[in-house]
């Protein structure tokens, strides 16, 4: 089997949501890691990725309205798993306009916040190659993944009340193909392969961009989430927020960490302790019973004697 993606088909599950075992923290880097590299400097914003995604995944996004921008639909939805976001930016350094167009979608974090937040066992899974996937049969539609995600990606479907996001076309990758968006991309702004290869490709692109005057060109592979399996080449890697609010240093929110970490254990602990305290108290003190005297006194009052 000539596997032309150069990607070892290691779709072994290494982590499942709300399940014991598996790894904890960021997925350690491995030779099996796959990655999608989105070279923003090659992107012409044609939306072929959006189109290919809808067609491959048999999704239907309703026809909306024009609201004065090119972004359509206006946000990610349960059907639009990837979305071109357009930003017009006057570069103060050069005085020239730059049209920054970023393909938004799941970043497939090595340390996925969605998976951390998910309460449904096995509803969110991570494969050894780094792909983070939602399993709809197990999803309960609670939306915790939305709160866990540092990139605001998952969306709950109104139709089936489960969460949706880019699967990195796990069905295609599992048979040795790249994602539908990467295949379609006319300018090869989207590439897919091993993460190592994608980093090498990114390096050559960054060198080219630097030679064209983009001194801050760089690779967006944020360490705060353990790196991602969707990476960007940005001309202005020092200012990722220029690209329709790409987070500067994303990590799983401390609040989510607290909620899914200390609170989860401390909460149950406190409840257990309270119940134990009651048990101990009862054992030590015995029941607080109404005595015969109490009844008599009560009767007296009741009878109007006292």
């Amino acid at each position, binding site marked *: 089997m000539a596997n032309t993606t150069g990607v070892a088909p290691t779709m072994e599950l290494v982590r499942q949501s*709300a*399940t*014991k075992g598996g790894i904890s923290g960021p997925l350690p880097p491995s030779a099996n890691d796959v990655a999608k590299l989105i070279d923003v400097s090659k992107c012409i914003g044609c939306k072929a990725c959006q189109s290919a995604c809808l067609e491959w995944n048999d999704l239907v996004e309703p026809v909306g309205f024009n609201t004065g921008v090119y972004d359509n639909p206006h946000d990610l939805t349960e059907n639009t798993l990837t979305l071109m976001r357009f930003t017009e930016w006057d570069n103060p350094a050069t005085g020239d306009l730059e049209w920054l167009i970023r393909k938004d979608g799941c970043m497939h974090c090595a340390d996925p916040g969605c998976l951390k937040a998910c*309460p*449904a*066992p096995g*509803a969110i899974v991570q494969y050894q190659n780094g792909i983070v996937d939602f399993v709809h049969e*197990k*999803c*309960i*539609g*609670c*939306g*915790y993944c*939305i*709160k866990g*995600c540092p990139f*605001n990606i998952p969306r*709950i479907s109104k139709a089936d*009340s*489960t969460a949706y996001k880019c699967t990195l076309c796990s069905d295609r990758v599992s048979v040795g193909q790249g994602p539908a968006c990467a295949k379609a991309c006319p300018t090869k702004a989207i590439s897919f392969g091993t993460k190592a290869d994608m980093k090498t490709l990114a390096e050559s692109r960054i060198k080219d961009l630097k030679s064209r005057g983009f001194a801050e060109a760089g690779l967006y592979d944020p360490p705060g989430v353990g790196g991602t399996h969707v990476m960007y080449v940005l001309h202005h890697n020092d200012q990722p927020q220029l690209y329709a609010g790409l987070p500067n240093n994303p990590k799983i*929110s401390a*609040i*989510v960490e*607290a*909620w899914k970490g200390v*609170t*989860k254990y401390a*909460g*149950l602990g*406190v*409840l257990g302790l*309270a*119940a134990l305290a*009651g048990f101990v*108290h*009862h054992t030590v*003190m*015995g*029941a*607080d*019973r*109404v*005595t*015969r005297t*109490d*009844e*008599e*006194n*009560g*009767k007296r*009052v*009741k*009878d*109007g004697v*006292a």
Partner: protein
Amino acid sequence: MSGTTPTVRRYTPAARANHWLTAISLVLLALSGLSLFHPSLFFLTGLFGGGAWTRAIHPWIGVVLVFSFAGLFVRFFRLNLPANEDAAWIKGLPEVLKGHEENLPEQGKYNAGQKGVFWGMTILILVLVSSGLVIWDQYFSQYTSIGQKRVAMLTHSIAAICAMLIWIVHVYAAIWVRGTFSGMTRGSVTAGWAWRHHRKWLREEVQKEQGGATPGE
């Protein structure tokens, strides 16, 4: 003592129904909430028809709780206003825990501990409702930011833990203090129970009875 033991009316049937509705809601909320709170309790979703049903039902039970608890609140909030003897009760809590209430001043219908439960639950339910609405994505997701939702999520969890703690206290107190249950089951307690735990209330009830007044709630 049956037959001969005099009783005092403590709760009307409506009040009892209201209480039990609240209680059931709370228990269901706790079970469903816990099932989504910690993976080891996810099996509890089985009680509700699975995870998706649990997720869908939980907020609706919350709605029931809100209305039910509002009823309780209207019924009882006056009786839970602070009273002179509350300070002494709090001070004498160790005595209470030892079962020596006789060393404390006479208590009205509710002692400071019960008032604590009442006001504690009132506040926590308010917190749970407001944070719950923020994270009820099905209807309200568009009104808040994800940052706000995260805070609400954490708040909701902590408040729920606190509410469950109060619930444990409440239930344990009802178990430990024998004779309490009949107030919520049959609506009346023995005069002896009233003498022992809520003597001031007992006297007020008797006075009212003699004055021909209808018993207060």
